[in-house]
């Protein structure tokens, strides 16, 4: 074995592990510990409560829907930003990161002001009978907003490195633009789209700040799971809050693992296509 020339392995790794252990691991262990305090029956009781179920369904179902919407619009925006040159392109490109940079509380009140029944857009939508703020669509809207940059930023470098020869070959063999896109380009993008989907999903499922203002927070209808945790804490139901938090964490991890497996599988499939 070669002697190490570079110094600081023990120091840097030791420091990083200690810091990570104290800041992230110890608190998560406390969470699991506290959650286990309510026992299996307590957990079943919590999970069978219609209000908890509705909140979890909204947080995770809504996040899936929002991430799917983001995949469509994210693909459109990333494609346009990479493939076309038009005035203001740099500005629009920088704007994509706004949801990363804008504090969630600000995004929350801004979206509410826009889509409330008396808001700039809400007033107009109400004429068509569409209610967004203070209803489940408002929750989805806020989730789409916070997750949007993930899909675009994951796709852009991949789109830039895409080999144009394949497209030209497809078109010279008589495929139309649309055919080329659907049968040649899209399959190569599937693994990347899944990464973007997973990132947007993870962000949206746990989202709190931007959602609570626009949601209206009506129990059983537009109440998200993180808000339910906050409410339990305010009632000093620490064990209940910890249990719900653990369920949310486990559900997020299960989804992320599932997506990672699908991604690996589709990656292999995309490679075979190339």
């Amino acid at each position, binding site marked *: 074995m070669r002697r190490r020339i570079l110094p600081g392995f023990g120091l840097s790794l030791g420091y990083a592990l200690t810091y990570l252990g104290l800041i992230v691991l110890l608190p998560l262990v406390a969470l699991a510990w506290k959650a286990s305090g309510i026992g299996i029956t307590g957990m079943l009781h919590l999970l069978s409560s219609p209000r908890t179920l509705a909140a979890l369904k909204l947080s995770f179902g809504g996040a899936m829907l929002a991430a799917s919407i983001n995949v469509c619009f994210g693909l459109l925006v990333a494609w346009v930003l990479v493939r076309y040159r038009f005035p203001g392109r740099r500005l629009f490109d920088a704007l994509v990161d706004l949801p990363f940079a804008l504090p969630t509380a600000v995004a929350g009140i801004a979206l509410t002001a826009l889509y409330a029944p008396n808001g700039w857009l809400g007033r107009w939508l109400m004429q068509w009978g569409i209610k967004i703020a203070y209803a489940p669509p408002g929750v989805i809207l806020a989730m789409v907003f916070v997750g949007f940059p993930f899909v675009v930023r994951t796709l852009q470098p991949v789109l830039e490195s895409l080999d144009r020869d394949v497209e030209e070959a497809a078109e010279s063999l008589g495929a139309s633009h649309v055919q080329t896109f659907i049968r040649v380009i899209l399959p190569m993008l599937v693994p990347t789209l899944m990464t973007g989907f997973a990132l947007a999903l993870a962000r949206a499922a746990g989202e709190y700040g931007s959602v609570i203002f626009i949601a209206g927070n009506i129990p059983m209808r537009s109440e998200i799971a993180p808000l339910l945790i906050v409410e339990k804490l305010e009632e000093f139901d*620490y064990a209940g809050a910890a249990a719900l938090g653990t369920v949310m964490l486990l559900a997020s991890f299960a989804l992320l693992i599932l997506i990672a497996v699908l991604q690996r599988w589709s990656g292999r499939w995309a490679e075979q296509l190339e």
Partner: protein
Amino acid sequence: MLLVLAATAFLTIFLALPLAVVFAEAFRQGLRAYLSAIGQREVLSAIRLTLLVAAISVPLNVVFGVAAAWAIARFEFRGKALLGAFIDLPFSVSPVISGLVYVLLFGAQGWFGHWLELHDVKIIFAVPGLVLATIFITLPFVARELIPLMQSQGRDEEEAARVLGAGGWQMFFRVTLPNIRWALLYGVLLCNARAMGEFGAVSVVSGHIRGLTTTMPLEVEMRYNEYDYVGAFAVATLLALLALATLAIKALLEWRYGDEIAAHAPGGH
């Protein structure tokens, strides 16, 4: 061209419009109402607290990020992938849970709650809690920027410095740091934006004590819930300006130092 139109229309309505409405609502009753809302003592103390929390948590995460990146990008050891996954963990945890875990540790009913009470130390509903929650939330930012960059740079330059007789810290300050400075700044920028804007996690540990534990995002929430819309949007304009400044510097860094920030994918496509 139709696609360009659709994409720009979407970006305008979906992203630019919310930004515009923040300023429109803040100035709805004129400049004087805006200025008097900004000038209130609670707002000033919220600004001070936000700066304080960021000033503590960002440097701590910088030191961690550099240490973690050094270990991961320069050495081979077992469990490296696992360590990387743990560093990313805070990104997939709900902000509310990031606050909750510290309440469970240091709150009145928490693991250390009794001991803290005996020794008269306050963490939850006080500044240390806000700092801890913010550190948790922003922990991955710096490390995530540095790890891929340092991995792509390789260890040749640092090994050369060592062979030529440089000491450990000398090598770090003369070779490593200059090589990663722009990526480090990039990570600090993102870390800081999130630290100053964080809402969910600090909301759980804050207790919302006016003038003592309310950061700017919490001040926005409290004013909004009190139907003081001009006040809420006035504070929100300050945070929106922070976001715009962050985006501008970010774009500048990417444009000017793009190849010193992003890792060059080994081998290419």
